[in-house]
């Protein structure tokens, strides 16, 4: 029962991109096409699953003081594996994702889940958590990709949906469109969930939360701290 909860929470309630606002870089960058969004989402899910399993198994072995470098190396190992696999089996996707494939290493979702969840929980809940978060990430990337592909090039998965006689709104597949669509999707999710929009970029899920708070950059106590210092 609780494992089921760990799985479903990542899909909507704690959706990593739309609710906790982590991993924004790939969300914006690769979603010019729905298929790229799914590819990126699944690649990230694979890395997240692998790193959550390994970190959950090694949680008593890794010394606390050097845990972040340890996590990063474990994650980078899985990313390299995904990179090599995609290069040989799905070269088209590999070139479409480009530099954002190695950059999965520094995706805050993965490090965040390692720090917040896998390092504190047993194997099975960690697997469920990884699958839920990964699929939630894939889902939001797919949504973003679908909207941008449909508006920007009139296609969906490469199939012409809007007749070619209509002019496409190119802006949607350009960088500016990415920010705009993400803003609207988050607003829509808030409206549907009937809750107040997140005031700030979700800091609690971020692995650097404590460092950020110390630097006086977070809203809660941070702004005051920064001002006191000044």
């Amino acid at each position: 029962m609780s494992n089921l909860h760990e799985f479903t929470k990542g899909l909507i309630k704690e959706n990593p991109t739309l609710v906790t606002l982590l991993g924004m870089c790939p969300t914006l960058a690769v979603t010019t096409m729905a298929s790229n969004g799914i590819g990126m989402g699944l690649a990230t899910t694979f890395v997240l699953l692998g790193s959550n399993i390994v970190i959950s198994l090694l949680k008593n072995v890794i010394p606390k003081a050097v845990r972040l470098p340890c996590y990063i190396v474990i994650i980078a190992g899985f990313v390299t594996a995904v990179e090599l696999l995609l290069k040989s089996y799905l070269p088209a996707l590999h070139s479409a994702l480009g530099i954002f494939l190695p950059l999965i290493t520094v995706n805050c979702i993965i490090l965040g889940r390692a720090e917040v969840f896998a390092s504190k929980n047993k194997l099975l809940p960690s697997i469920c958590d990884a699958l839920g978060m990964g699929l939630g990430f894939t889902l939001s990337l797919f949504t973003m990709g679908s909207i941008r592909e449909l508006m920007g090039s009139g296609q969906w998965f490469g199939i012409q949906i809007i007749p070619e006689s209509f002019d496409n709104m190119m802006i949607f597949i350009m960088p500016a469109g990415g920010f705009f669509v993400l803003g609207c999707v988050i607003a829509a999710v808030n409206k549907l969930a009937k809750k107040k929009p997140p005031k700030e970029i979700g800091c609690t899920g971020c692995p650097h939360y404590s460092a950020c708070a110390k630097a006086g950059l977070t809203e809660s106590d941070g702004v005051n701290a920064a001002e006191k210092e000044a």
Partner: protein
Amino acid sequence: MKELFVIMVSAVLVDNVVLSQFKGICPFLGVSKKMRNSVGMGAAVIFVMICATLVTYPVYKFMLLPFGVEYLKTIAFILVIALFVQMVEIILKKLIPPLYKALGVYLPLITTNCAVLAVTITNIDEEYTLAQSITNALGTGLGFTLALLLFSGVRSRIEDSDIPETFKGVPATLIAASIVSLSFMGFSGLF
């Protein structure tokens, strides 16, 4: 020399790291609330990017390439960057306390800033020489700082404006970022 200038300008304006390449969005949205924080973060990022390039370039050329293990560059680079940032933090704390006070707090945040890893990987993928790599790192860092500074100005205006309830907070910030990004599109086709 002309080539270096082209790399520099395209890194700062045409291919701005945040606004057209979507790297380093987290610090861009997180730290751009106050002008003062933006400057500190920007300076720390420029510093780390240049140093990371100086460290990873020889690592790739003299360690990975001779043994034919180029595919390990993601692991090697992130490890080198993480170690390097930690080391800089300790050294600054001991030797130059004023600089540590100004930049130190931002350093731990930079390890996982994807813009830093991206710069080092781009330098290798584009087969830049050392001089070109450093220029690219400096340009990218300056572009990041520019975007952060511009956006912190925009954000202070959003705070006071009257926007629909659903869009308050993050959605409005993202749409503002979209407009700033739109303005940077004017630079495309400069070369």
